[in-house]
């Protein structure tokens, strides 16, 4: 079973939501749609579900055009970012609803409900109404209702975004085990968070402004972002960028930080380019002899969980440094940043295409894959 989108476009009220989408979804695979807010993730999922129709292009399932098939005749499930359940039904009736509509016999409905509620740990809540549940419980019920149908296509539109940090942390690994042994359905999961994409694994579709920028294996795409925009979207905080100039055997970053043109950067064509480095590849301590060093000024430091993000500024440089632990820095204080030239990305300054990526065998970003 495969679901194919060919040259699909979607407009609404003269606004382009999606343009020229060509994608193939295979049965048994897990897809992560990654993109910033308004990138078109929800539009894409709604097209896949059949809730919206494309304004151009074709959507086929096993070679059959399904654009005209109404939603209620498809085998599709969708979990929204808002917690959507039937408020007038208790949890059990909520989960039974799609099965009853499909006309399943009572004992099979019971068996399936028992299975799915045990899987999601909501067996105790069957007699409650959605309004009496916490956000996390409500989303589990919505998920149970979506899973219980054994749909051919399961769509999850940022299902964790409205939950608090703790619950997200708890549910992510659960999702991985839930979807890990799927063989029968196409699962599409959309998120804005690179970390979530990396944790869930599978295949990635990176969207930006209604266009697909990159597809392929999640980790492959993380290590080799196709272009500068992908590098920005697929890193949180976004990858730090600076303009550079390749001249002879030297690469001059910004206003004069000079690197040797060697290692993975040796193949860069002469002329201007864009250099990128991840926030967690910037260090405050020197870790190797050939580290580059940069003096800058602290603009802002924010603590996020058990990490500190330091926004630094120096002439053209406007970067974010990620540091483990909780620290505080005075605004405007001087700071010295070190980084390994082996961790730099290079992009074309003309079209943003990736020119060179660090060799990920010496990956300093293994932390992100935790």
């Amino acid at each position, binding site marked *: 079973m495969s679901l194919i989108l060919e040259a699909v476009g979607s407009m609404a009220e003269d606004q382009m939501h999606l343009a020229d989408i060509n994608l193939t979804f295979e049965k048994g695979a897990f897809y992560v749609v990654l993109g910033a807010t308004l990138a078109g993730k929800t539009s894409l999922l709604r097209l896949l*579900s059949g*809730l919206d129709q494309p304004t151009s292009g074709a959507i086929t399932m096993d070679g059959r055009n399904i654009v005209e098939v*109404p*939603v*209620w005749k*498809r085998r*599709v*499930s*969708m979990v*929204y970012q*808002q917690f*959507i*359940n*039937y*408020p*007038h039904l208790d949890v059990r009736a909520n989960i039974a*609803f*799609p099965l009853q*509509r*499909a006309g399943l016999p009572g004992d099979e409905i019971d068996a399936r409900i028992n299975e799915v509620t045990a899987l999601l740990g909501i067996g105790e809540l069957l007699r409650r109404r*959605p*309004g009496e549940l916490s956000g996390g419980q409500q989303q589990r019920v919505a998920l149970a*209702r979506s899973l219980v*149908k054994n749909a051919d296509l399961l769509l999850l539109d940022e299902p964790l975004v409205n939950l608090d940090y703790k619950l997200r942390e708890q549910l992510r690994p659960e999702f991985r085990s839930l979807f890990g042994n799927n063989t029968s359905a196409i699962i599409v999961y959309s998120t804005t968070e690179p970390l979530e994409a990396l944790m869930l694994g599978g295949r990635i579709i990176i969207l930006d402004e209604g266009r697909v920028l990159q597809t392929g294996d999640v980790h492959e795409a993380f290590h080799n972002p196709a272009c500068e925009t992908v590098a920005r979207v697929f890193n949180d905080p976004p990858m730090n960028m600076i303009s550079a100039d390749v001249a002879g055997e030297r690469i001059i970053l910004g206003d004069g930080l000079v690197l040797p043109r060697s290692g993975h950067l040796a193949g860069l064509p002469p002329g201007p380019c864009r250099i990128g480095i991840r926030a967690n590849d910037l260090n405050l301590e020197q870790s190797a002899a050939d580290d580059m060093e940069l003096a800058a000024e602290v603009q802002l430091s924010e603590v996020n969980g058990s990490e500190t993000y330091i926004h630094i500024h120096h002439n053209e440089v406007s970067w974010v440094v990620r540091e483990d632990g909780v620290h505080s820095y005075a605004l405007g204080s001087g700071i010295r940043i070190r980084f390994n030239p082996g961790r730099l990305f290079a992009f074309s300054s003309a079209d943003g295409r990736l020119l060179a990526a660090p060799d990920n065998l010496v990956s300093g970003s293994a932390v992100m894959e935790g």
Partner: protein
Amino acid sequence: MFVLYRSLKYFVLLVWSAFVALPFLWALTTSFKTANGVVSGATYIPWLQYEPSLEGWKVLFRGEGKGIDIITPYLNSLTVTLSASFISLLLGTLAAYGLSRFSWRAGPIRNADITFFFISQRIMPPIVLSIPFFLMLRMLGLLDSRAGLVLVYIALLMPIVVWVMVDFFNNIPRELDETAMLDGCGPLETFWRVILPNCKPGLVVAGLFCIVFGWNDFFFAFILTFTETQLLPVAIVSLNSSVTPWWSLSASSLIAVVPLVILAFVIEKYLSSGNLAGAIK
């Protein structure tokens, strides 16, 4: 301080309860009086202050060969009110759902305009509507009939239903409709199984309004019916003659208020059960 606050509170409540309940007591005592009892002023204790008589009540059931038959107008009123309310609710909620969920365009006219057209029906004073209604019913041959009154009441009640229900439907997230469709419901099934059960508060409010309006309407019932089809308010007024029969007027208004009192009790039970509050978070 607390005691003062409490006594003040109960004093206010007591005064208000008396204000609401005393007219009923007055009507009740009056209904058992004769002409002599009425003119002697406000008296409340039977036998001691006045001589009770069943005259006022007998008149309503053709007692002693005279008076009126109140049973027929009563049943007419019930039939007309309930039919008109039911049809208005049915058509009104469907119309409101359509206006809330789908985009309609006819030239410059959009959904908001259509909703306004519905409500604008009620801006006109009833007297303006009465003549067209009369002419239309005459054309249809429905003057002086229950069916004609039902039609007129639907025209008057449906705008209110649409108005109340559009607002309710707009407050229900579209994702709920979509989820129902994804779960295998067609559009009508979605409306019936998922949307309507979550609009109970709106249905109760709209239904209550319809029933109260239909039951109490005198104006249209008076103008559009003559002898064949009499509704209760018209029948009550017809009791009046050169000497105002306060006793039978009191008795008939007590009978007339019974269905509404029952309705109030039913809805109060419904209100306190929490079915109305918080249907949609």
